[in-house]
């Protein structure tokens, strides 16, 4: 899987939880989900579940705790997809 492709797909996952659509359109790997996209922390688990559905992977608690920005989200998705294939 290509990181840029995952980043583009993540925009769709993040979309329901992001008010600022302009910020979402311009995300990069350093974009912080809470600080930059203003996503409410209560939605972080929703995003993880949606990512699990999107990539048919399972993200456990330890992996979930690594996710704080777009780059770490891509890292976890790639790592889980690799280990489950």
């Amino acid at each position: 899987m290509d990181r840029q492709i995952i980043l583009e797909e993540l925009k769709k996952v993040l979309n329901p939880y992001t008010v600022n659509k302009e910020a979402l359109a311009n995300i990069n790997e350093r974009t912080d989900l809470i600080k930059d996209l203003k996503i409410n922390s209560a939605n972080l688990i929703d995003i993880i579940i949606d990512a699990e559905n999107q990539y048919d992977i399972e993200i456990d608690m330890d992996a979930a705790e690594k996710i704080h920005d777009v780059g770490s989200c891509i890292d976890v998705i790639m790592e889980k997809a690799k280990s489950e294939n």
Partner: protein
Amino acid sequence: MNSAGNDIISLNHIDSGRTKQERFYSKFLLPAEVDLYDNNHLAQLSFENFIWLLWSVKESVYKFCKRHSPKLVFSPGKINVSIIQAPAMHDSHLFGTGEITDVSFNNAEYYQCTVTAGNEIFYSRSKVYQNIIHTVVNNRDCFDSMYWGIKYIEDSNPAGQSESVRLFILKTLKNIYPHGGISIIVNDADCPVIKMNEAETNIPVSFTHHDKYVAYAFNLLDEAIPKFAVR
């Protein structure tokens, strides 16, 4: 460690069905924490509200700790709720379109948790309304100097929430310090700081917002009050 942490959850804004799925709550609750629901006779609390109650406790502890550890990442699995005590007086009414401010808590009306994070122990007070859950934590089981407030707002976009909670707390602070020249800034750790007459105070403050609700908590310990402040 002097700090503050609070969190609010709008229950109208969460996916109730998803919350009840083990796949969801196992991302941030340990099995022993889930067992607290059955072992503590919490029948007056729905399971999904129990899940969000523990989330709000963990989030509040994280905010409390982050003031002194700016690079801390929210790791709910490392913040463990070990004890939960239901309120003696169960009152789950609707939080309307107004506001409430107070100091300390009537323990008989609040869920009380004991929490460990690393080597630290924390204590919480949570109120479960029909539509919101609000939690405040402290590192002592004493909330006598803890000021807090909850407010309904019309504007739920992040900028509106942020502005509203600042105006809300300023109203309370100006009642306490009418001559304080009070303002709020955000420090390098991304934590709000109260300034009086352009000087930063040591009064720890925590903001939270979700949907159309904002809340604050600050701990007015004597040693945190600037000498020039006139109450």
